[in-house]
């Protein structure tokens, strides 16, 4: 079937099968930042935004995004770079494979939660697995990033 949707700000069309998942579609469309880590909705690596809300693209049928707006890290390069600098300063993009999905969720969280506590941050990001870093460096990066952003706003 034919679907139309907005991918990173651009109107695109695609012909998809009933069982095509969004993950494969966006990769086919050149959004290689979107990774697959598990096929069982456990890892969060495939996180994209649909109408601004984080979704696991491995569990979302492509047909469902017809008429909607999909954003991957390719569409958030400036924000990714900004937060990414904090992450890189901690060395917490070790292999980097989990970073795009993780950053998608961090950016969504930064929009959604005001002044999150450590517990709130952990809970929000619970679905984002990382096998390399042990999570502490990611947390340090987030806290420094949020603090800097807050400082800039005040």
């Amino acid at each position, binding site marked *: 079937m034919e679907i139309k949707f907005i991918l990173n700000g651009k109107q695109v069309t695609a012909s998809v099968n009933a069982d095509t998942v969004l993950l494969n579609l966006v990769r086919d469309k050149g959004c290689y930042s979107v990774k697959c880590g598990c096929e069982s909705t456990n890892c969060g690596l495939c996180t994209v935004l649909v109408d601004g809300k984080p979704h696991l693209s491995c569990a979302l049928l492509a047909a469902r995004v017809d008429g909607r707006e999909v954003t991957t890290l390719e569409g958030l390069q400036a924000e990714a770079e900004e937060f990414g600098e904090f992450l890189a300063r901690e060395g917490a993009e070790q*292999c980097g494979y989990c970073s795009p999905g993780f950053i998608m969720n961090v950016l969504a969280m930064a929009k959604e939660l005001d002044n999150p506590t450590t517990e709130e941050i952990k809970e929000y990001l619970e679905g984002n697995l990382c096998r390399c870093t042990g999570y502490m460096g990611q947390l340090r990066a987030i806290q420094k990033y949020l603090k800097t952003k807050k400082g800039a706003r005040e």
Partner: protein
Amino acid sequence: MKVVNQAIPKVDSKALVTGKPVYTDDIAPKDCLVVKVLRSPHAHALIKNIKTDTAMKVPGIECILTYEDCPDRRFTMAGQTYPEPSPYDRLILDKRVRFVGDAVAVIAGENEAAVLKAMKLIKVEYEVLEPLLDFRKAKDNEILVHPEDNWESLCPVGADNKRNLCASGVEGEGDVDKVLSECEYVIEETYHTKANQQAMMETFRTYTYMDAYGRLNIVSSTQVTFHVRRILATALDIPKSKVRVIKPRIGGGFGAKQTVVAEVYPALVTMKTGKAAKIIYTREESMIASSPRHEMELKVRLGADKDGIIKAIDVYTLSNTGAFGEHGPTTVGLSGHKSIPLYGRLEAFKFAYDVVYTNVMSAGAYRGYGATQGIFAVESAVNELAAKMGVDPVALREKNMVREGQIMPAYYGETAASCGLDRCMARAKEMMNWDEKYPVRDMGNGKVRSVGVAMAMQGSGISAVDTGAVEIKVNDDGFYSLLIGASDMGTGCDTILAQMAADCLDCSMDNIVVSGVDTDVSPYDCGSYASSTTYITGMAVVKTCELLKEKIMAKGAEYMDCPKEEVEFDGTKVFHLSSGKEITLKDIGNNVMCNNEEILSASAAHSSPVSPPPFMVGMAEVEVDKETGKVELLDYAAVVDCGTVINPALARIQTEGGLAQGIGMALYEDVVYDSAGRNFSNSFMQYKIPSRMDVGTIRVEFESSYEPTGPFGAKSIGEIVINTPAPAIAHAVARATGVQVRELPITAEKVYWGMNK
């Protein structure tokens, strides 16, 4: 020092955090054949017949390959230096299948749907055989996993396929039995560690194609780029000159990718069809047909005199290598070599082992590589000794631990030339507030808290084996290319080697470019494993820079017409003090591109006769629910002596990450089989790796010693970090509940039943 010991962001960090297409599947040709493997449903069977004609009719199918299409030449997938200690026990596809998930046929087609459809239509007739599933019964069992005559062991490791033995041996010093019999306190216990998955986020993957020169090109997510070339040439029975291997960025390895798990399948397809092909393992395949940690059962006898001096340690390790022997003979060695030497006052030790074949998936290399298993056993036994004696386990260790300058008889007789273990213990004790927290604290709500401790060591490369080389070239305008054969697997060797080069050459990091590994271009390096890169390849960088500086000065002297003995180089210019002449590196770099007969580059290799151990101490604080047995890790404090820390941010992340993996091993992770040998732990649903809710707070500090044989005084960091959580957490749980869990993982059930025996 300018950039060494600085937390420099990784040279590839920007690409990674912005999600650039830098991994294998991102850069594979879009039209390459999709390759998948049909896998055995039986743990042990002989293939009688494979019918592929119906499957071949599926539109888009290019080929279906079976054992009849593969060379009858056995090889090992273990990424080790030739001659490999791991036996040559595999074919790419074999008539005999040896575990549920073993490869039966390789299918290639235009798209995944066609390949999956064809896979279902292949008809295989099996003669099902009784599997050998209990590793305790494997030795000399009448069921043989490898009865074949062309099975071969290249090294004297005590292997015998007619006895299901992948390796066996015994070593020691002094009379253990006698010393133990004279000990006031003796602990004799058996510990059991399970197979664990590395579970790197990027599964195994490779693509292959033929190039314009008729050579097989392999682009693979691997830690052992050069070994892939040799192993694939052997497996495919083609000259090594016909193979080129390239490593792009890789999404984690932890040892998994020190085994050539997936490369052979697309390579076989490309060889047969001439077409580009790729394989991407599903998570399920990565869980059922990969290279997990060797399951081990360790019998420990440990004795101390009345003053608590540990006088003898006896370890017997039974290791389960599964269907194939990858890393079997070597991992087992570390279970003794990297546990017993932690104790410096022994009068006798003995270490014996058997490594057996069974009909479960082959084990492989996983961070810690046997040391993790041995340290769980020995450190647990020491904690049990402290309990038996009624003394503080920290004090007991302070009395017995290996100290700087001591000879370590159980560690190849090497001397601990750099050892800050005592300082690690002192600092960890402060961080954990040990004296206050050591007593068990009842929280009054059915929960109790307590702390546990463990020490660890590892090596830095494989002594007198591992070889690393780099080359540095001077280019136009005087920028440097640093060519590395070591395979950065995310942990940052491209960065730290560039840091070392920048310091040696007195320049900024910006003046050095680094690229990934290409066997056609990079100097030889055995690869990134055995905690070798910083220590071994780092030293190759130091040597190379020395050579290059000489050459730069000679060139500068030539251009300035000065005696080369009299010039100096400060990183940006060569100058002659007495005449005041100088020439910049930029000019030298540009000059050598015209009318020049000597290239301005240098290359050096390094290998080390010793493998200096990093040391560490880990302390865990847990809370146990007395009702349910549920264990929650609250806090983990770790102090590491890895020698000079080359990049504190990257070393810290490695440590925190390794600790989290160790916490997973201690509390959650377990590869479970049913009675027919089917693997239940085939997804992240079943095989739980820790999320950020499961690891408590992890705190890391460094207590550096200075290793005289290492670059800038550095030792290794990569593996040691996984070794302390299992024994430290088991200890904390034992303190809290009185239940010493000797079989990992430490589940609520085990604790509950232990309390309610």
